[in-house]
């Protein structure tokens, strides 16, 4: 298991950025969040993506979000997960809802 200290390749950072951009487009997402322990991040050698943890190709992805409570959380989470799977494909997507607005 790659922890938060692990530096990932530039390709993976780009993937994480693509996921982050996609999730931010969701109207129910206020912002991305690193989670309570600050571990939902992707750290590359030069940049860092907060709120998305990518550890490898075809590996499970974790996203941390702060949601706007217009709809029930399970509904929002389902659509966020769909957006992420559009980008990364058929991998497991864990969603952490760290706060609501």
């Amino acid at each position, binding site marked *: 298991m790659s922890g938060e200290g692990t530096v990932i390749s530039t390709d993976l950072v780009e993937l994480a950025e693509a996921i982050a951009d996609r999730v931010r487009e969701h109207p129910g997402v206020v912002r991305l969040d690193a*989670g*309570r322990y600050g571990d939902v991040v992707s750290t590359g050698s030069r940049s860092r993506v907060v709120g998305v943890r990518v550890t490898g190709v*075809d*590996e*499970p992805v974790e996203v941390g979000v702060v949601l706007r*409570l217009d709809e*029930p*959380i*399970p509904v929002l*989470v389902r659509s966020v*997960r769909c957006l992420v*799977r559009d980008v990364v494909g*058929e*991998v*497991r*997507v*864990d*969603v*952490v*809802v*760290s*706060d*609501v607005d």
Partner: protein
Amino acid sequence: MAQTSDAAVSMPAKRAGTPGGAPPARLADENSLGRTTIASTVVQKIAGMAAREITGVYSLGGGMSRAFGALRERIPGAGTVSTSGVAVEVGEKQAAIDLDVVVEYGAGIVELARAVRRNVVTAVERMTGLEVIEVNIAVNDIHLPDEDDEGEPANTRVE
């Protein structure tokens, strides 16, 4: 992980390795799509809002929770002013909620507690999808109508 199980369906040899082709998912997984974690702050906020909606609830907090509220704010990600008086335990599928309530003078406490509990259970279950297993309500104080007129000391007592 999910991909290996998908591949296993088309490859009988591999399928024998994982009985029934079931993904090696965690017990808590709803399905292989992924796990959803809801922070306790989220449940605290929703429960707090739902409790405050009930007429007769003057505020949340009071009693011991003020001391705990101060403590809670030192823990990152947990506790703001809006969540003082609300303590929650959140599991994968269930939540338990403790409320400290200051009621308005004149409100029937038994009915009030019932209304608060019903509203909190409905709000949390609808908004989070978690099953609320209990809502414990402690009525710690009563707000008297003339307390506001007495000046500053009364105000500080109720924030």
